[in-house]
């Protein structure tokens, strides 16, 4: 009995993790068993409306130099995630704040936290529960663009949404 239960559990975890993989946009496997488990995953009731919002695919919002206010061009993405979080109380998201390389490292660490907190506050104002959101700043330590000019800096001044539970 206990062995059966454990095997069953392993199968469920495997199915869940495959489903998690297949739902990420860069996944290209698309074999038959995966699409089966995907349909199982997406059949949960709350997700249907909010998951269809294409803005939910966006996981990064950008900021102006030395600023941490939410830009208008970030609102569609954040609204979609706020709706998703509000519809899925078990979903958990980690908001990572980042800065470009200009300025001092500890100041940028504080700036990154300001950006992450601005995103968290925005999500909460649009219906997400603050208990669903965790914030962390990486300052300038984790750039995505490695150049030393404005086009790189603009990509690095960002906040990223990383789901730790029930990612859309």
């Amino acid at each position, binding site marked *: 009995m206990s062995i059966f239960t454990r095997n069953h559990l392993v199968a469920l975890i495997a199915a869940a993790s495959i489903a998690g993989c297949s739902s990420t946009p860069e996944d290209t496997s698309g074999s038959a068993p995966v699409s089966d488990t995907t349909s199982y995953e997406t059949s949960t009731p709350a997700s249907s409306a909010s998951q269809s919002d294409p803005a939910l695919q966006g996981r990064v919002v950008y900021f102006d130099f030395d600023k941490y206010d939410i830009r208008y061009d970030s609102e569609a993405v954040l609204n979609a995630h706020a709706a998703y979080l509000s519809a899925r109380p078990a979903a958990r998201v980690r908001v990572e704040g980042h800065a470009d390389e200009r*300025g*001092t*490292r*500890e*100041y940028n*660490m*504080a700036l990154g936290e300001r950006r992450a907190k601005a995103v968290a506050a925005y999500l909460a104002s649009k219906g997400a529960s603050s208990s669903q959101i965790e914030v962390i700043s990486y300052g300038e*330590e984790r750039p995505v663009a490695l150049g*030393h000019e404005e086009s790189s800096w603009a990509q690095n001044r960002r906040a990223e949404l990383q789901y730790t539970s029930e990612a859309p």
Partner: protein
Amino acid sequence: MFVRYFLAVFLALACAAARAELTIEITKGMDNAVPIAIVPFGWAQPNRLPEDVSAIVSADLHRSGQFKPLDRADMLSRPTEASQVFYRDWKVLKTEYLVIGKLIPVDGGRYRADFQIFDVFQQRPIKSASVTSTNLRALAHGVSDIIYLTLTGIRGAFSTRILYVTMERMGPKKQRYRLYVADVDGHNDRIILESPEPILSPTWAPNGRHVAYVSFQSTRPSIYIQDTVTGRQQKITGFPGLNGAPSFSPDGKQLAMVLSKDGNPEIYIMTLANGQLRRLTNHYAIDTEPTWSPDGQSILFTSERGGSPQIYRQHIASGKVERLTFDGNYNARPALTPDGRFLAMVHRSNGVFHIAVKDLVRGTFNVLTETDLDESPSIAPNASMILYATLHGGRGVLSAVSLDGRVNVRLPSRYGDVREPSWSPFL
């Protein structure tokens, strides 16, 4: 036989390559650097010494920017004792000072350097001294310290150490962070912490043995203190939010830091003996990068409370706050000379980040560097130079600039991005 010869040549080349990588480049020197000759020290034993002591002394003095050591190949004679010194040999080369010496093996596997400094123009010896050490590099730095003190009146900082962080990119989203301790000339580098997660803000305790830093090794930032001798690491903070910018008080008993556990980034002071925290600042703006005044009575820090990042000083007991910088709209990361007079900082002008110094007595403000993205100024314990991080060839490197801006040297680095230097106290 042939194989052995080949191997010897190969090893010599390999060593030369390793040395070449560690060559310090003087990017800006003083026109009136003092010409000095460090004659190869005598060694009467049959074995070859593993280190070239007089070459290390020459490199030390050269790196200070204040001396111009004579190339060994140009020396007309190589005296190792006073009776062999002919002043005209040095006068003709326009050498102002001459240093000669001998190395002697002493008990316990140690070496002793007996050396003399001569004033060539006045034709007289001005100093005789001895330095003893088991380590020839340490011995050489000790000789450099005595020469520097004798000729400038300022205590040499050649026997000190530096901390720095390197970041090596191993692949997309995969990095390797390493925290190093090294001699101030870049030699004897040793990794004391390695992590795939960020390491930043390393700083020395006044005892020159313990260091504090921020590490994300637990996936969130925490402040740690590590013993550089035993390697033992102790976690000091792990509050929600920021845990950053540690700075030891001058007596080593307290640690200033930035925490955002109460909402905003604020400066706190922890008593290390009992972990008790005292909040220093209370402002909705970003307050960060605390550093202590030498008397331990005040904390200097960066704050954007005036609308842009500027440096402020807060008296700990009274809470009285005073703004110290007014030049430009970005001044951050304060560092004070040991006498408290000069304030080094990161300064932005025309969108470019430089190291600047403000004389707090006269009020004068000077931008010292011409490189870009300069950060993390750390002042030598003798206030001769400011060590900082900059960008060279698209890579993070360490440089040093004199407080008057007249000397600028680039320190060697092997690989990766080098950043966040911290100069040790006198050891």
